[in-house]
């Protein structure tokens, strides 16, 4: 007797909701086992990781602050992945947005006020879009694999950011630290709640709702999905694959750029040699954990932001390495992808040896 996958006649609706939950439970169980094996009190560790950040107002605020860029980026990536465009370079597009958005506050420190902040945001979005347009054009014109080009461009963008923060844009009054001048309050996003929740949370919520509307209610969203599922069917329907590649790249690049400028004109408050602890990569996990659905992404983004918070807490409280968070995130993505297959397939127990030979694997 052996177990094989059998295609379901119709995708399971209940598994669509259950699979992310199942993945989370499996990740927690795995972590529990790992903690036990390494001699750490597992309940205490899991409490520090996933409950403690929710027990204080400041840490809930911090959680929201971290969730904003992750969700913004993941919303954009979901468009790409739905149309089978493998943009994995959001981390670089974020840096490009941060750089472009910082032009005004770094080079014209006297310019301040709402109009300036608006211009900074628009420049950040434009920066991210422009940087995402490079792999889009290389894919459309030259057939270059976007997975590899977007990832290579992450290294290029981060090195350029490093150069700018250490070189031309270094604050002359900054004691030789590799940072730009600190932005003034009139060059930062306004705080709208508590001590640290800025207006970027509104941008994020708007992005979620607009993305939901675009994907479920408009022709463009339909085209994106059809071309993702079957490029041939899409071309018979007269949809241009190239246009969709460009469109999804621009959307995701723009949102990553927005996340970038919101970070430097928000929690960070200046341009540094690094402006993201890997949000662009975490967003990939969030996009899949949220099943590429805007509302799912909202929830998944909050969960992954929680894992960042918990990671910091666990580092202080029980001396866990900060890499633990990344291991958790990577493992979670493995489980999500594995569980997702139960949406389209079910396990079947096969008895006959003859069948075994035909389906061996």
């Amino acid at each position, binding site marked *: 007797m052996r177990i094989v996958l059998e295609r379901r006649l119709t995708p399971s609706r209940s598994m669509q909701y259950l699979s992310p939950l199942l993945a989370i439970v499996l990740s927690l169980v795995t972590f529990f086992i790992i903690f036990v094996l390494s001699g750490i009190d597992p309940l205490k560790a899991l409490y520090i990781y996933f409950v403690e950040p929710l027990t204080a107002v400041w840490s809930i605020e911090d959680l929201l602050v971290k969730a904003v860029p992750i969700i913004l980026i993941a919303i954009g990536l979901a468009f790409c992945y739905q149309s089978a465009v493998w943009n994995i370079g959001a981390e670089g597009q974020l840096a490009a947005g941060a750089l472009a958005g910082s032009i005004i506050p770094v080079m014209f420190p006297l310019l301040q006020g709402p109009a300036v902040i608006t211009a900074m945001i628009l420049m950040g979005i434009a920066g991210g879009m422009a940087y995402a347009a490079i792999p889009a054009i290389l894919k459309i014109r030259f057939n*270059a694999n976007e997975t590899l080009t977007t990832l290579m*461009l992450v290294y*290029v963008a981060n090195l350029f950011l490093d150069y700018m923060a250490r070189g031309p844009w270094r604050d002359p009054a900054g004691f030789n630290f590799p940072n730009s001048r600190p932005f003034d309050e009139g060059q930062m996003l306004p705080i709208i709640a508590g001590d640290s929740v800025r207006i970027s949370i509104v941008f994020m919520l708007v992005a979620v709702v607009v993305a939901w509307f675009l994907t479920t209610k408009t022709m463009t969203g339909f085209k994106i999905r059809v071309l993702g599922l079957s490029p041939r069917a899409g071309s018979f329907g007269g949809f241009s694959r190239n246009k969709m590649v460009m469109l999804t790249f621009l959307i995701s690049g723009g949102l990553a750029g927005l996340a970038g400028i919101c970070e430097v004109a928000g929690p960070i408050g200046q341009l540094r040699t690094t402006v993201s602890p890997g949000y662009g990569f975490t967003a990939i996990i969030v996009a899949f954990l949220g099943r590429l659905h805007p509302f799912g992404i909202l929830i998944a983004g909050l969960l992954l932001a929680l894992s960042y918070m918990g990671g910091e807490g666990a580092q202080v409280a029980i001396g866990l*390495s900060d890499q633990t968070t990344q291991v958790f*995130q*990577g493992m979670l993505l493995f489980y999500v992808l594995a569980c997702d297959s139960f949406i389209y*397939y079910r396990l079947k127990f096969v008895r006959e040896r003859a069948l075994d030979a035909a389906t061996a694997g």
Partner: protein
Amino acid sequence: MQQRPGDVMTMLEGILLTIVTAATPLLFAAIGELVAERSGVLNLGVEGMMAVGAVCGFAAASTTGQPILGVLAAIIAGMLAASLFGIVALFFVANQNATGVALTLFGLGLSGLIGDSFVGTPGIPIPKVNIPVLSDLPVVGRLIFGEDPFVYLAVALALATWWFLFKTRGGLIIRAVGDNAHSAHALGFSVLKTRFLAVLFGGACAGLGGAYLSLVYTPQWTQAMTAGRGWIALALVVFASWLPGRLVVGAVLFGAVSILQLHAQAIGIGIPSQFLSMLPYIVTVVALVVISRNRALLSVNTPACLGRPFVADS
């Protein structure tokens, strides 16, 4: 400053020697990925497998004092990491792009976790090959007869891979599974088993490439020391249009770019170091564009089922 011809020769020899060592880890990782892709599996987790191999290789070598045990540990670690990918992408039919990215994120994190206690530990030197007389020949002596043993292993592996893929029945099965999984299945070959083995081989090679980095290239462990080499190896496979012979040429070219930019940084040619550090990545993009624009040429050797999941219809 007057330079004597002898100095120039020594410098040239030094540069050529370092190019070879820079090319070796790329070649290891790319050979493994080439075999996996020939079987129709796109494993984007090379970077993660290399990182895991690098840290396990270093950990095993420095705890036991035996470099060879380090190499074995790296190979096993790479295979274990690859098997995670294989289980999820092959047996659970998950999207290969996403699963590969998961492996890279997981592997980079895990390597950091394991490596935490090994940061700053000195490595164990691995002696270079030394053949009397031959190794002492000017320029070519050390270049051809005086490398570290891994260099010869990498070249031999490339040759063996070519022979295996194109001259043996096993290689034919791998290529059949990669070009037309359903026909291969109908002929009675196990698609998933073949692909899983190819993925494991990919993991072993990536682990070996990682071990080369932490044991030979820069004998120490530092966080994120793979520095995108796994991704460059992936690009190399496309660049070589899935042919092992071209892989050797490609690896040397990419090794040359990364070494020459280092030398340029060292002598200071007035270009900020960050721009020089960008070069290997930019060259990778340019190389991809140049190769990919000729779709007809590329499609000759591209495995037709690359990246497509397979489920047997029973």
